[in-house]
């Protein structure tokens, strides 16, 4: 898939990437070095992903965003220097992004992503969408799926965040496992009294594996009400016999579902300036979504709405970190990818990986 350039790693690269080459190996670093990535959306989450990928040493990163810098975005994002109000967000982020690693080709594109023709996406090995509408994400994902381009989406809503990945029908990768060293064989000789389970960094094997992903469309086409979805019913001593406890795997999907619906309806995310009106709409959507799922609206605390506004910097850091690492794994074809969603709840500090889609 991604052809690793069989070129020599320069001394400069070896010195700068030393600590990560020691973790994921030279091969992985070369694959990263041959990859071009498209990043859509340069708000808080986008900036984190940009930083992580540029530091990792991809070949090129194109930052696409049509929005302008507002006073609020100065606070939300560390790539944009102050006093850049009115400038395009991607453009304003360019200089500091490039400084992160001069060895990466960083570009800014100020177009609306909706206006980009299909061919535009084909120049990339991976596409990462943030702040996009559900429909756009589904459309771009379908295009990427057809052309073996790795697709990632992610968003942060206040204290909550999620990421989704679609690495295609068949994503091949390797896992490095230690080779157990047997004593007194010709192969591995680590000393006159080498113990049986010596783990030697030179003695590892690469195991090839494959993972299959589904499209975003299929992932979101969950049938909330079918029996399987409701999982098992359980009684526990904590509750009276009239109550039952249901394990629902859909809990983490609630907030992203509600917020993405808001985004589709209003063309923007909830804004603190219109807190009252937005909160009301959020509660309305919440009720609709829960009803469709056949579950009580007591599920989410009444004030959940106040934790969904804006993008919390530390939540962007967490989601951006996980998302960034998934992109690195996919491009380097090393280590098992998370399949296919990651959800983070900043109130609780819990981060779960779960799969939604056809079995």
């Amino acid at each position, binding site marked *: 898939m991604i052809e690793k350039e069989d070129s020599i790693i320069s001394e400069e690269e070896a010195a700068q990437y030393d*600590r990560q080459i020691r973790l994921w190996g030279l091969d992985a670093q070369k694959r990263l070095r041959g990859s071009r990535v498209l990043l859509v959306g340069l708000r808080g989450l986008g900036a984190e992903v940009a*930083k992580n990928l540029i530091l990792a040493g991809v070949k090129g990163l194109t930052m696409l965003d049509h929005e302008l810098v507002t006073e609020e975005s100065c606070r939300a994002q560390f790539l944009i220097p102050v006093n850049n109000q009115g400038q395009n967000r991607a453009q304003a982020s360019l200089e500091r992004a490039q400084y992160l690693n001069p060895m990466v080709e960083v570009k800014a594109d100020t177009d609306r992503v909706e206006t980009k023709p299909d061919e535009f996406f084909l120049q990339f090995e991976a596409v990462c969408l943030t702040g996009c509408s559900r429909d756009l994400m589904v459309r771009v994902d379908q295009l990427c799926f057809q052309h073996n381009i790795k697709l990632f989406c992610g968003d942060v809503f206040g204290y909550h965040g999620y990421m989704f990945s679609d690495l295609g029908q068949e994503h091949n990768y390797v896992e490095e*496992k230690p080779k157990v060293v047997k004593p007194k064989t010709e192969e591995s000789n680590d000393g006159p009294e*080498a113990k049986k389970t010596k783990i030697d960094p030179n003695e590892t094997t690469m195991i090839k594996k494959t993972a299959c992903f589904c499209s975003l469309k299929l992932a979101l086409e969950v049938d909330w009400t079918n029996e399987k979805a409701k999982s098992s019913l359980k009684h526990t001593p904590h509750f009276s016999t009239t*109550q039952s406890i249901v394990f629902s795997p859909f*809990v983490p999907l609630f907030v992203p579902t509600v917020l993405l619906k808001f985004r589709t309806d209003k063309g923007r995310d909830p804004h603190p300036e219109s807190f009252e009106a937005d909160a009301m709409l959020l509660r309305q959507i919440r009720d609709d979504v829960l009803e469709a799922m056949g579950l009580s609206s007591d599920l989410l605390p009444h004030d959940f709405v106040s934790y969904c*506004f804006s993008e919390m910097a*530390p939540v962007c850091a967490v989601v951006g970190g996980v998302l960034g690492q998934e992109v690195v794994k996919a491009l380097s074809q090393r280590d098992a990818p998370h399949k296919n969603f*990651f959800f983070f709840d900043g109130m609780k500090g819990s981060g779960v990986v779960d799969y939604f889609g056809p079995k």
Partner: protein
Amino acid sequence: MVQLVGSLRKELADSLSACRVLVVGAGGIGCELLKNLVLTGFKNIEVIDLDIIDVSNLNRQFLFQKKHVGKSKAQVAKESVLQFCPTANITAYHDSIMNPEYNVEFFRNFMLVMNALDNRAARNHVNRMCLAADIPLIESGTAGYLGQVTVIKKGLTECYECQPKPTQKTFPGCTIRNTPSEPIHCIVWAKYLFNQLFGEEDADQEVSPDTADPELSWNPADTEARATASDQDGDIKRVSTKDWARSTGYDAVKLFNKLFKDDIQYLLTMDKLWKKRKAPLPLDWLEIQKLACPQEVTGTGLKDQQVLGVAGYSQLFSRSVETLRSMLADKGDGAELVWDKDDPPAMDFVTAAANLRMHIFSMNMKSRFDIKSMAGNIIPAIATTNAVIAGLIVLEALKILSGDVEQCRTIFLNKQPNPRKKLLVPCALDPPSANCYVCASKPEVTVKLNVHNTLVLALQDKILKEKFGMVAPDVQIEDGKGTILISSEEGETEANNSKFLSDFGIRHGSRLQVDDFLQDYTLLVNVIHCEDLEKDVEFEVVGDAPDKAPTPPSAQEDKNVANGNKDSAEPSTSSKAPAEQDDVLIVDSDEEEPSSSTMDVRMESGGHKRKLHDAETGEASAKRQRLDQPLAADEEDDDIIALD
């Protein structure tokens, strides 16, 4: 009505902009943390770091650029942050947090302290300062793909030192000097050799064959053989290595033949050692030169990852000795070099010497890349792990500042989700340990040692400072006279240093009151006199896990802490108290699958990687069991919905 400022409720946002916080460390976690703090709305931040920027930092310490290499991390971090947030009020200190200037009063200025450190000594120290000042502390660490965050609050939670930690592993002298069986033994030997030749000579870092090896039984018939085998330039037992080297003008060939031929031949006369082991094969300089063939640069790998042949390493040995010799000469009389993994000739020297020794002892030689990892205790590190952990730190900080300390958790970041699908695993914080030798109300410890041959200096440096983490201890003997054994004031008790404890009447059952006034810490030490400690063991703390080389069965290894480091167990490669990079807090690995594919416990200098989850101390099993239980009270579970 809820008022929001960004994502935060107004009351919280207001308190953030008013409070002062301290960040200790401006490296991998520190850079990410500073960025998160200002973006979240913290306005008054102080950051301290003693280090300067190195090119290998640039893959993750994103506030620094190439042009900043050599400059102060704290200073440059501050300047970088001001670029995107000029209204932040940041004070940067290019200094060590262990400097007495940063006393309890200093710490009391802050609402919150956040560690972003890489070594245990500093962590212990900050732990005590925060206990003394009663300020909440957020501790964290990362290694490779793994990370952890936890909160420490006096009286409410465990402190950093509540759980005894296994100390850094060291190897017995005879293993290093006579019978190495693993590459690490040879690497340790090579580092000792560097110090003996070019650096500070240390009695604990002998490289010559050890005739006091307990495996040898002294046989008079051997004496003759030994005398003949010892090299012509002097009896190796009587002349110091440095003096001998100097006398030959640091002649590389002579050095080579002494270390890799003569000394090995001497070892061969100790035939008891080789009854069950493969005997070492001495090398000869001239013979090797005959074998030499031009080294081809093969492949597209890193130059450092190539493994040369014996001839290649002999050449490297010779070249590096030459370079180091002239570096030493340039420094003038009485000069000493300090080993540094990033100093090419020093690293070349250790690579060559270690490999030659490995070859002699029938071990596969290793690349410079791998040796550097082991010799330099390098922890692989990436940006994303630090980003996640630093995000979690700020979220915990917000809970503390909202007055919701009971919401705080220890959170582990795994490489792969656990069986319950969690990649980030929050766990309830533990209450303080009643027996903690730091935070208990009147902490006490019991130490086993030989009062007749333990020096006062050793008590101060090895026991009180290294083991018990004190910075400036004052020691009084509880002998009814209040005899002062050690004073932290310079010069006051210098004369006592070279005396033995028994010289002061200290014996079995004696009690010592030890104070560190900087840390506002008093520890009572009970002395047990013991005459049969293991060889090379100077003291033992009663109640600690015995220090031993880890040989856990592989199944257990898989369950142990993952630290993202691919090497085998790393013991200390330097005998001195470490300021070296190292550790990371414990990370609870996945119970079913190792979080990192080549996991092993890493116990090395200065720090240490295993805290709670140590199978050897038995504490792990108790702890892990708790986490294993489904719906354990301490593990969060938000998957449950109650239906009416």
